[in-house]
């Protein structure tokens, strides 16, 4: 399925370090997520997974390290070098635009570098309807269409056409997550599982190149988990969106991810395809401290 081009790295995290005062939350972490892959970050509680996410999406400013996103093609080492030295946030390389995420504020990472994320504790706009949530996600497109509000105030037709297109995109994603007939319900009125999927749909409405999911299966029952797996697989195969996810539910991680990075105490202890990581003695030790990998991995799903 994956061509050579798709297997180039999309996101390269190099020597990432995040300190909170004296606490080293992430210590010299390097890994890469390839284009078109589903990359999972796993690790015991407190390993620093969400901190990595917050660094990538700009909610934290890393203490040191480089987070490079090559949105279209892989950048050459010399391009990366030039950008790093220039002090700028992004530049157009021969293969496409490259971004240094650690230099960008959070909203620009979402709007320019096109990295979308969801949250461990769902952050929907609960008082707005399901449809409104998806329209707000297309804010920047609509803002341009409304001529930064000026044209929109005078009822420019171009704005209404852009809004109709935004509704179409929202309708598409509502259909995908099976919430089309609940479009006009307040997001806070949805059951938990639907809220999880809506948050993913909202992130997808920003048309991201990288979708970061923070524990998307948390609190889902096995059937909802299976639906989620199917949704993520279909996003991977049908859209140009790569996925980076944090997950405790091993049934999700092992089934859908192409690549797994294991963290413990802010340090990477293993990195490779699921089959490799599953049998890595260091991972097993980190999770349960026993050798029996079957018990270990089954146990993680139940009591992370």
């Amino acid at each position, binding site marked *: 399925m994956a061509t050579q081009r798709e297997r180039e790295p999309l996101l390269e995290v190099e020597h990432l370090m995040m300190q909170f005062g004296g606490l080293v939350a992430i210590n010299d972490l390097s890994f890469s997520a390839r284009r078109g892959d589903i990359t999972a970050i796993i690790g015991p509680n407190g390993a620093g997974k969400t901190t990595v996410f917050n660094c990538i999406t700009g909610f934290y400013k890393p203490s040191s390290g480089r987070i490079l996103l090559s949105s279209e093609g892989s950048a050459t080492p010399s391009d990366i070098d030039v950008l790093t030295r220039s002090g700028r946030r992004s530049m157009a390389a021969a293969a496409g635009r490259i971004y240094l995420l650690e230099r960008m504020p959070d909203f620009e990472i979402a709007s320019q570098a096109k990295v979308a994320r969801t949250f461990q504790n769902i952050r929907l706009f609960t008082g707005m309807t399901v449809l409104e949530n998806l329209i707000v996600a297309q*804010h920047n497109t609509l803002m341009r269409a409304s001529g930064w509000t000026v044209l929109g105030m005078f009822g420019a037709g171009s704005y209404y056409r852009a809004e109709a297109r935004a509704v179409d995109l929202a309708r598409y994603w509502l259909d995908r997550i099976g919430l089309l007939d609940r479009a006009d319900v307040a997001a806070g009125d949805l059951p938990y599982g639907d809220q999880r999927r809506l948050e993913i749909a909202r992130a997808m409405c920003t048309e991201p190149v990288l979708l970061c999911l923070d524990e998307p299966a948390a609190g889902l029952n096995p059937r909802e988990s299976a639906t989620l797996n199917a949704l993520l697989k279909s996003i991977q195969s049908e859209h140009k969106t790569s996925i980076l996810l944090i997950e405790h539910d091993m049934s999700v991680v092992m089934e859908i991810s192409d690549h797994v990075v294991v963290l413990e105490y802010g340090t990477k202890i293993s990195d490779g395809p699921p089959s490799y990581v599953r049998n890595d003695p260091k991972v097993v030790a980190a999770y349960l401290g026993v050798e029996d990998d079957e018990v270990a991995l089954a146990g993680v799903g139940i009591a992370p």
Partner: protein
Amino acid sequence: MPGAGLDHSSTQSLGIGAAIIDAGKAGLLALGLAVPILALRTETNLENQLILRERWDYVAIAVAVAFFGRLVYLMIPARRAAPKARSLTFNGSGIARAVAIIGLALLIVYPFLMLLLVGKAASLKWIDNFGIQILIYVMLGWGLNIVVGLAGLLDLGYVAFYAVGAYSYALLAANEPIKQFMADMIGPSFWPLWAFWICLPVAGILSAFWGIILGFPVLRLRGDYLAIVTLAFGEIIRMVLINWIDVTNGYAGISGIPRPSFFGIPFNASDSGFSAIFGLEFTPLYRTIFLFYLILGLALLTNWATLRLRRLPVGRAWEALREDEIACRSLGINTTNTKLTAFAIGAGFGGFAGAFFAARQNFISPESFTFMESAIILAIVVLGGMGSQIGVAIAAVAMIGGTEILRELDWLKHVFGASFDPVQYRMLIFGLAMVLVMIWRPRGLISTRYPSIYLKERKSVSGDLVKEGHG
């Protein structure tokens, strides 16, 4: 909804005995409060000595009111089921729409209705003190509603922008050099006639500019901290107005502010005045009626802009910001710009209202821009239901109209004696009304939110789901 949960659990299972015990507690509480406040009063007698007067009858009344009030409140179970049922009746947007249309129609005929009902002389008071005064606050409420109701930024210093608008207009319109310059350039009658129409947008723009100035330092603040800084900002503006005597004339204020003209035609008794040109008998009433329609137009402009903005990405971003700022940033929304536009547009409408106020009063001083004004405007927004346009309008009518009505209640003097002045009880009644509204409708008079876009059916969103914002 503090207290609501407690009421539900305590009252539904309460028998009469428990209710009496509960009311007894309320009575004891009232006793504890009333003894230090009401029981003893120091007065000077005729020999200029301080004497202590005991007023145990007052204490008894306060305790009785608290006891029986609580008892009655606890004994009426239907009242506690009421909020849900009532918000259901508001669910059809038809009712809100009907109220809005009827209200607007009433407003349009209001001045003539008053002329017809009470005659020329008496109608001046009704159009000016009631009509114009209420509409100014409706406009201010709607302006603040953008900041507090939509964007969820608690602003306790909104009156600052009202003041900036008023002083901008006053200083520009009553400015001798500008007047002289315009007289030299265009003609002596130009500036007095057109100052209002030129300075009105300028005042709004200057206010919006000050909104941005305030916005920058408070961008990083949320909730209580934001409220405190905005409050301080309001006071700073007032202090500058008081102390920068060279420019603002301090406490003495600015007088002789040009009044608005009827698009170039002055309201005076001269041959080129409004009355003469339209062949009417001269009376100051025409100006008042014109001012009424002017502020009505400005208020409707505010409303139109707000409704329009709500359907544009910037308005949706405001509401999203109120709901969850972090989620906004994760979706690529520049929250800095979003907050600044909310401050600027809200402040701009405050500035328009201020310019109108200065033109109507003909005189302004810092006295008009105290913290109390901010508090009243905020109270209007909160009572009306944050984010609800019609709710804010109803609350403004109730609060400002209610205050003015108190002045009319002279017959109460026959009941309570000649020294009784109902206006003195204004704040007491405000407080009581606030407490009652917060008990029965904790999210304001109209708490439901109407979505800005829908696929099949516009369903209102319950106020319980809508967040209040954390700044």
